[in-house]
């Protein structure tokens, strides 16, 4: 929207024509659900992560590998990584959609964030698997 032009309602459109297409977006429910479900999953997983970090504070690499070598620890770390990066990508997407007005910048920003989340998420998952296996 152009901030500098004087406000005006003088358009050749009926009120119905103006309102049409400005309702619900018709999609986005999976985004909303994904955000909530990963949030619920992250409640126990982040507490597990906090405990893990306390256990691993000051650990050397062998202790870290031994910890992640336990199958349940490796699985819980992988669950954490998937839920965390999915939640992060969805959350930052909403922030970008809300504050970036320029459409090209908005699209580029969302794609960059999603690419970074995939990249870091895969790097974390591969690292956990390498330590665990």
């Amino acid at each position, binding site marked *: 929207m152009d901030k500098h032009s004087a*406000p005006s309602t*003088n358009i050749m459109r009926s009120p119905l024509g103006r309102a049409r297409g400005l309702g619900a977006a018709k999609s986005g429910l999976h985004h909303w659900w994904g955000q909530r479900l990963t949030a619920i999953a992250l409640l126990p997983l982040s507490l597990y992560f906090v405990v893990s970090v306390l256990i691993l504070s000051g650990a050397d*690499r062998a202790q870290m590998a031994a910890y992640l070598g336990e199958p349940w620890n490796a699985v819980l770390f992988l669950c954490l990584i998937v839920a965390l990066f999915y939640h*992060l990508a969805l959350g930052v997407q909403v922030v970008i959609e809300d504050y970036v007005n320029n459409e090209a910048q908005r699209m580029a920003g969302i794609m960059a964030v999603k690419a970074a989340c995939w990249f870091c998420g895969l790097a974390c998952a591969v690292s956990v698997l390498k330590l665990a296996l």
Partner: protein
Amino acid sequence: MKDVREALFAGRNTAGKLVRRPISPFMLGSAYKPQMSSMTSIMHRITGCALGLGTLLLTLWLVCAATGDGAFSIVQAFLASWIGILILIGFTAAMFYHFCNGIRHLAWDAGWGFALPVMHRSGWTVVAATAVLTVGFWVIAFLVW
């Protein structure tokens, strides 16, 4: 007029003058009084973005651990330095805030806690719980270290 939506953003003020309607983030300024609802909401976003940067540290930590003893000892030494601990304190505070306020958001999604007194109480509870959890975490961390 480029966009039909512009017409929807125009309205009349109490004097009858045609004005552009204010849009949410741009309402911030001298006319805006901070409230529990808006402040906890924006803090949820800020801590969420900060935690996003924190995941880079998590990635670095795990990748270095998978790389080798040398890389891992460097990252562990950095995290144990005073600047590393400062970053981690910020990270844990942001995480506990986002965790507690996230529960509050999930409760709202379930339709609970919208009454203003309840919202104020849950907001202060989040602030207090963040402080208690962050301090508690670091007390335990220095004890087990």
